[in-house]
């Protein structure tokens, strides 16, 4: 199968799971350059499992995952991250007990000191909220500030693809807006995004394309605005959120 030239990440018939349990039954999707792709599906559909599989936290049992056309299937988590895939997992995974700036520097772990320092400076300028709190314990930030820190940290490495698993969960409306603005701004920085969003309408409004995952396989895909307008989708799946 030939892919469009600008495809960054390809997930090709991937099967994975936990122990005996198979969760993804041959999921296929792709993310292209500078694109925001939404991944939607009901609770337990396998969104988080897919994110974990892409980053190597879950083993690929069959199928293939390619980044820039090169297979990363079977590579270690740290190798995959260093190749350019960053994951912001569910929950707020700051390193509590460490300073905000140390958290950020960890996002650039393995880069040279000059690259790290330059990236830190750039990131702090981009996120004034974090700049003000650079020397503060990351655990002392509010939930929203923590989520912003985790996103900023994931960007420290200038990834090709950013995977976001429910980044807005539990945030105040204002903070959701801030996080979404950051995500939207990634288009200009050439970072592709795969976004899982509880608020399906907001996610589809932000995204260029979307995939619907059901029972561990992709059930539908299309232009995000088409899916948003599709009555069958909004009735069966978006439910009350679509109103």
């Amino acid at each position, binding site marked *: 199968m030939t892919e469009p030239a600008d495809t960054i990440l390809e997930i090709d018939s991937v099967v994975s799971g936990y122990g005996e349990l198979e969760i993804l039954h041959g999921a296929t999707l792709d993310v292209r350059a500078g694109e925001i792709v939404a991944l939607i599906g009901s609770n337990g559909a396998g969104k988080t499992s897919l994110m*974990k599989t892409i*980053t190597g*936290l879950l083993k690929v049992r069959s199928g293939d995952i390619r980044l820039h056309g090169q297979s990363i299937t079977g590579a*270690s*988590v*740290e190798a995959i*991250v*260093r190749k350019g895939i*960053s*994951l912001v*997992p569910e*929950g707020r*995974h700051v*390193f*509590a*007990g*460490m300073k905000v700036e*140390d958290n950020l*520097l*960890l*996002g650039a*772990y*393995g880069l040279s*000191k000059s690259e*790290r320092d330059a990236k830190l400076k750039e990131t702090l300028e981009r996120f004034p909220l974090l700049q003000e709190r650079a020397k503060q314990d990351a655990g002392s930030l509010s939930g929203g500030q923590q989520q912003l820190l985790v996103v900023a*940290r994931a960007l420290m*490495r200038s990834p090709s693809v950013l995977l976001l698993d429910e980044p807005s969960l539990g945030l105040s409306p204002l903070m959701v807006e801030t996080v979404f603005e950051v995500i939207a701004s990634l288009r200009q920085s050439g970072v592709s995004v795969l976004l899982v969003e509880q608020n399906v309408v907001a996610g589809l409004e932000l995204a260029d394309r979307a995939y619907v995952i059901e029972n561990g396989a992709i059930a539908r895909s299309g232009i995000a605005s088409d899916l948003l307008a599709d009555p069958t989708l909004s009735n069966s799946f978006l439910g009350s959120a679509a109103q």
Partner: protein
Amino acid sequence: MDLAFLLQLIVTGVTTGAIYAAVAMGFVLVFRVTGILNFAQGELLMVGGMLIISFRGAGWPLIAAVPATIALVFLLGCAIYAFALGPAIKRGTNISLLLITLGLSQIMQGLAQIGWGSDPRYTPDFTPADRPLTLFNVSVTSQSIWIMGGVIVALGVTYVVLERTGIGRALRSSSIDPMMARLSGINVRLISLIAFGAAGALAAVGGLLLAPVIGMTYATGSLIGVKGIAAAVIGGFGSIPGAIVGGIALGLLESIASLISTGLQTGISLLAVVLVLLILPDGILGGRRVKTAVGV
């Protein structure tokens, strides 16, 4: 009890406590990063002591014997992880890992007995003096100054590495959230290996400083290992200040307990540890509870 006598007790206590602090720090480092309680930590100290005695016995100057000892025990710490605990950590339960470390401590004692014999081994003070330094009627031996100074340097270096370097950040992050550490591009297994090596180096510092003060035998490590754990627990099991406070508190307790009975010194001091923990369950500096579970 006059003041000089009290001060003397304190000097003795702080000197012993410094050794415990070094052992405790290694213990904490390994536990925080890997979740393993390494009961072979005391044996690493013993090997450090034995090595410096052998090197100096062979005529090496301190400037060569000290780094060689530290480097070798660092490698021994790494080897323990690479060949015994690392392979077991994926499948092993906490209990089985604990048993492995107990087994390792016995093996190391056995090998030390074969290699270095059963009789106590001695080495001169680093800077032999005719008589101890006397300040306000308190005598301080030159070796006890070496011990306190050496431990301060070792823990100072540990502090700077942990707080200021990429490796230090990687060590701390791995102890806080191992999954997120991996997602930050950190090879957590390599970091675990380094934690074991560093714990070995810290134990080696304790052992090489202590060697001139006692007759070192293959069995010296086991009791000191227990004291190191006790010091770590008293200190709250979390930080360098905790290890120092815990070590010195235990050293002082022992020094006071020796007034009651030298035979019961260890028993009394460990009993005191229990009492401290009844009052402060998280230890003296333990604000935070330890978490090592991989929260995926």
